[in-house]
Protein backbone atom coordinates (compact mmCIF):
# COMPACT_ATOMS: atom_id res chain seq x y z
CA UNK A 1 0.00 0.00 0.00
CA UNK A 2 1.36 3.37 -0.99
CA UNK A 3 0.07 6.96 -0.93
CA UNK A 4 1.79 9.86 -2.68
CA UNK A 5 0.55 13.45 -2.47
CA UNK A 6 2.88 15.64 -4.47
CA UNK A 7 3.32 18.78 -6.56
CA UNK A 8 5.64 16.83 -8.91
CA UNK A 9 4.45 15.52 -12.26
CA UNK A 10 4.37 11.72 -12.58
CA UNK A 11 4.66 9.32 -15.52
CA UNK A 12 1.52 7.13 -15.68
CA UNK A 13 3.13 4.27 -17.60
CA UNK A 14 6.30 4.19 -15.50
CA UNK A 15 4.15 4.11 -12.34
CA UNK A 16 2.10 1.23 -13.74
CA UNK A 17 5.24 -0.73 -14.57
CA UNK A 18 6.74 -0.20 -11.09
CA UNK A 19 3.45 -1.28 -9.56
CA UNK A 20 3.24 -4.43 -11.73
CA UNK A 21 6.88 -5.35 -11.08
CA UNK A 22 6.16 -5.54 -7.34
CA UNK A 23 3.17 -7.87 -7.84
CA UNK A 24 4.61 -10.97 -9.46
CA UNK A 25 2.20 -13.86 -9.45
CA UNK A 26 -0.98 -11.80 -9.28
CA UNK A 27 -3.43 -12.07 -12.12
CA UNK A 28 -5.22 -8.74 -12.50
CA UNK A 29 -4.15 -5.10 -12.32
CA UNK A 30 -6.26 -2.00 -12.91
CA UNK A 31 -4.85 1.50 -13.41
CA UNK A 32 -7.10 4.54 -13.44
CA UNK A 33 -5.56 7.81 -14.62
CA UNK A 34 -7.46 11.09 -14.29
CA UNK A 35 -6.28 13.99 -16.43
CA UNK A 36 -7.05 17.70 -16.68
CA UNK A 37 -9.99 17.73 -19.06
CA UNK A 38 -10.38 20.37 -21.73
CA UNK A 39 -13.09 20.44 -24.36
CA UNK A 40 -13.63 22.92 -27.23
CA UNK A 41 -16.88 24.06 -25.48
CA UNK A 42 -15.10 24.64 -22.16
CA UNK A 43 -11.38 25.11 -22.75
CA UNK A 44 -9.20 25.04 -19.64
CA UNK A 45 -5.75 26.55 -19.74
CA UNK A 46 -4.76 25.59 -16.20
CA UNK A 47 -6.22 23.72 -13.25
CA UNK A 48 -4.99 24.71 -9.78
CA UNK A 49 -5.40 22.13 -7.06
CA UNK A 50 -5.24 23.30 -3.49
CA UNK A 51 -4.47 20.60 -0.92
CA UNK A 52 -4.34 20.02 2.82
CA UNK A 53 -1.50 17.47 2.69
CA UNK A 54 -1.61 16.10 6.27
CA UNK A 55 -5.35 15.40 6.00
CA UNK A 56 -4.91 14.06 2.44
CA UNK A 57 -2.39 11.49 3.59
CA UNK A 58 -4.62 10.39 6.46
CA UNK A 59 -7.70 10.16 4.24
CA UNK A 60 -5.98 8.37 1.35
CA UNK A 61 -4.30 5.88 3.70
CA UNK A 62 -7.66 5.09 5.31
CA UNK A 63 -9.29 4.61 1.88
CA UNK A 64 -6.51 2.25 0.80
CA UNK A 65 -6.83 0.20 3.98
CA UNK A 66 -10.62 -0.04 3.55
CA UNK A 67 -10.39 -0.99 -0.13
CA UNK A 68 -7.64 -3.53 0.49
CA UNK A 69 -9.67 -5.34 3.15
CA UNK A 70 -13.01 -5.09 1.36
CA UNK A 71 -11.84 -6.26 -2.07
CA UNK A 72 -9.00 -8.53 -0.93
CA UNK A 73 -6.41 -6.53 -2.87
CA UNK A 74 -2.81 -7.70 -2.99
CA UNK A 75 -1.57 -4.15 -3.52
CA UNK A 76 -3.02 -0.68 -4.06
CA UNK A 77 -1.49 2.72 -4.72
CA UNK A 78 -2.83 6.28 -4.95
CA UNK A 79 -0.82 9.13 -6.48
CA UNK A 80 -2.45 12.58 -6.33
CA UNK A 81 -0.95 15.81 -7.61
CA UNK A 82 -1.66 19.34 -6.50
CA UNK A 83 -0.44 22.76 -7.56
CA UNK A 84 -0.88 24.21 -11.05
CA UNK A 85 -1.55 21.73 -13.89
CA UNK A 86 -2.05 22.21 -17.61
CA UNK A 87 -4.77 20.62 -19.81
CA UNK A 88 -4.04 16.96 -20.49
CA UNK A 89 -1.69 16.50 -17.51
CA UNK A 90 -2.36 13.56 -15.15
CA UNK A 91 -3.88 14.62 -11.80
CA UNK A 92 -4.51 11.31 -10.13
CA UNK A 93 -3.63 7.66 -10.57
CA UNK A 94 -5.10 4.73 -8.68
CA UNK A 95 -3.68 1.21 -9.12
CA UNK A 96 -5.01 -2.06 -7.73
CA UNK A 97 -3.72 -5.61 -7.91
CA UNK A 98 -5.75 -8.71 -7.20
CA UNK A 99 -5.96 -12.41 -8.01
CA UNK A 100 -9.21 -11.72 -9.92
CA UNK A 101 -10.31 -8.98 -12.28
CA UNK A 102 -13.60 -8.09 -10.60
CA UNK A 103 -11.88 -7.20 -7.31
CA UNK A 104 -9.23 -5.12 -9.07
CA UNK A 105 -11.90 -3.16 -10.98
CA UNK A 106 -14.10 -2.68 -7.94
CA UNK A 107 -11.21 -1.63 -5.71
CA UNK A 108 -10.08 1.02 -8.19
CA UNK A 109 -13.60 2.35 -8.73
CA UNK A 110 -14.25 2.45 -4.98
CA UNK A 111 -11.05 4.46 -4.44
CA UNK A 112 -11.91 6.94 -7.19
CA UNK A 113 -15.44 7.44 -5.86
CA UNK A 114 -14.07 8.17 -2.38
CA UNK A 115 -11.31 10.44 -3.70
CA UNK A 116 -13.91 12.64 -5.41
CA UNK A 117 -15.74 13.45 -2.18
CA UNK A 118 -13.44 12.64 0.76
CA UNK A 119 -9.95 13.76 -0.28
CA UNK A 120 -9.01 17.33 0.71
CA UNK A 121 -8.24 18.80 -2.70
CA UNK A 122 -10.04 21.78 -4.21
CA UNK A 123 -10.00 22.50 -7.93
CA UNK A 124 -9.90 25.93 -9.50
CA UNK A 125 -10.22 26.12 -13.30
CA UNK A 126 -8.73 28.92 -15.37
CA UNK A 127 -9.73 29.51 -18.97
CA UNK A 128 -10.42 32.39 -21.37
CA UNK A 129 -13.52 33.35 -19.33
CA UNK A 130 -11.63 33.68 -16.04
CA UNK A 131 -11.15 31.59 -12.94
CA UNK A 132 -13.71 29.62 -10.92
CA UNK A 133 -13.76 27.09 -8.11
CA UNK A 134 -15.15 23.74 -9.25
CA UNK A 135 -18.29 22.89 -7.26
CA UNK A 136 -18.71 19.50 -5.61
CA UNK A 137 -21.12 17.33 -7.62
CA UNK A 138 -24.20 15.55 -6.32
CA UNK A 139 -23.32 12.78 -8.79
CA UNK A 140 -20.11 12.17 -6.86
CA UNK A 141 -21.99 11.78 -3.57
CA UNK A 142 -24.33 9.31 -5.29
CA UNK A 143 -21.35 7.38 -6.74
CA UNK A 144 -19.83 7.07 -3.27
CA UNK A 145 -23.17 6.03 -1.74
CA UNK A 146 -23.22 2.94 -4.02
CA UNK A 147 -20.59 1.39 -1.72
CA UNK A 148 -22.56 1.85 1.53
Amino acid at each position, binding site marked *: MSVRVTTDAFDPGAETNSFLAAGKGAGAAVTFTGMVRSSPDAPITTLSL*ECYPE*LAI*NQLSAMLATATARFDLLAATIIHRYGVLRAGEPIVQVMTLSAHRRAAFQGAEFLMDYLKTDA*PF*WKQESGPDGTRWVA*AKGDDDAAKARWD
Partner: protein
Amino acid sequence: MKILYFAWLRERLNRGEEEVSPPDGVVTIADLIDWLAQRDEAFAHAVEKRSLIRSALDARLVPHTTPIAGASVVALFPPMTGG
Protein backbone atom coordinates in the same frame (compact mmCIF):
# COMPACT_ATOMS: atom_id res chain seq x y z
CA MET B 1 -5.43 26.88 18.79
CA LYS B 2 -4.65 27.22 15.09
CA ILE B 3 -7.40 27.41 12.47
CA LEU B 4 -6.71 26.61 8.80
CA TYR B 5 -8.89 27.72 5.88
CA PHE B 6 -8.88 26.32 2.35
CA ALA B 7 -10.16 27.13 -1.16
CA TRP B 8 -12.92 29.76 -1.47
CA LEU B 9 -13.26 29.99 2.30
CA ARG B 10 -9.58 31.01 2.51
CA GLU B 11 -10.10 33.51 -0.34
CA ARG B 12 -13.20 35.11 1.19
CA LEU B 13 -11.53 35.45 4.59
CA ASN B 14 -8.33 36.65 2.97
CA ARG B 15 -6.25 34.41 5.25
CA GLY B 16 -5.09 30.80 5.23
CA GLU B 17 -4.72 30.45 8.97
CA GLU B 18 -5.05 32.23 12.29
CA GLU B 19 -4.43 31.66 16.00
CA VAL B 20 -7.47 31.92 18.27
CA SER B 21 -8.21 31.39 21.97
CA PRO B 22 -11.89 30.49 22.23
CA PRO B 23 -13.58 30.98 25.65
CA ASP B 24 -14.79 28.06 27.81
CA GLY B 25 -18.33 27.96 26.37
CA VAL B 26 -16.94 26.91 22.94
CA VAL B 27 -17.10 23.11 23.17
CA THR B 28 -17.60 21.78 19.63
CA ILE B 29 -16.53 22.81 16.14
CA ALA B 30 -20.07 24.13 15.60
CA ASP B 31 -19.61 26.35 18.69
CA LEU B 32 -16.26 27.52 17.34
CA ILE B 33 -17.82 28.51 14.00
CA ASP B 34 -20.60 30.40 15.85
CA TRP B 35 -18.07 32.20 18.04
CA LEU B 36 -15.87 33.17 15.06
CA ALA B 37 -18.98 34.40 13.18
CA GLN B 38 -19.97 36.66 16.10
CA ARG B 39 -16.55 38.30 16.11
CA ASP B 40 -16.27 38.89 12.35
CA GLU B 41 -18.97 39.87 9.85
CA ALA B 42 -16.97 38.65 6.80
CA PHE B 43 -16.60 35.27 8.50
CA ALA B 44 -20.32 35.15 9.34
CA HIS B 45 -21.15 35.79 5.69
CA ALA B 46 -18.66 33.19 4.36
CA VAL B 47 -20.00 30.38 6.59
CA GLU B 48 -23.66 31.34 6.22
CA LYS B 49 -24.52 28.00 4.61
CA ARG B 50 -23.14 25.69 7.28
CA SER B 51 -23.85 22.61 5.09
CA LEU B 52 -21.10 23.87 2.75
CA ILE B 53 -18.46 23.90 5.50
CA ARG B 54 -16.48 20.74 6.25
CA SER B 55 -14.16 20.36 9.22
CA ALA B 56 -11.06 18.49 10.39
CA LEU B 57 -9.46 18.25 13.82
CA ASP B 58 -5.73 17.57 13.96
CA ALA B 59 -5.85 16.32 10.34
CA ARG B 60 -8.80 13.96 10.86
CA LEU B 61 -12.07 14.59 9.03
CA VAL B 62 -14.80 15.06 11.69
CA PRO B 63 -18.39 16.39 11.92
CA HIS B 64 -19.18 19.83 13.40
CA THR B 65 -20.49 18.13 16.53
CA THR B 66 -16.96 17.04 17.52
CA PRO B 67 -15.52 18.55 20.77
CA ILE B 68 -12.38 20.61 20.22
CA ALA B 69 -10.85 20.14 23.68
CA GLY B 70 -7.20 19.07 23.44
CA ALA B 71 -6.91 19.68 19.69
CA SER B 72 -4.25 21.99 18.33
CA VAL B 73 -5.41 22.46 14.70
CA VAL B 74 -8.95 22.90 13.39
CA ALA B 75 -9.41 23.13 9.62
CA LEU B 76 -12.50 24.55 7.90
CA PHE B 77 -13.09 24.16 4.17
CA PRO B 78 -15.69 23.75 1.39
CA PRO B 79 -16.80 20.34 0.04
CA MET B 80 -13.78 18.55 -1.40
CA THR B 81 -13.28 18.07 -5.15
CA GLY B 82 -10.44 15.58 -5.37
CA GLY B 83 -9.76 12.81 -7.85
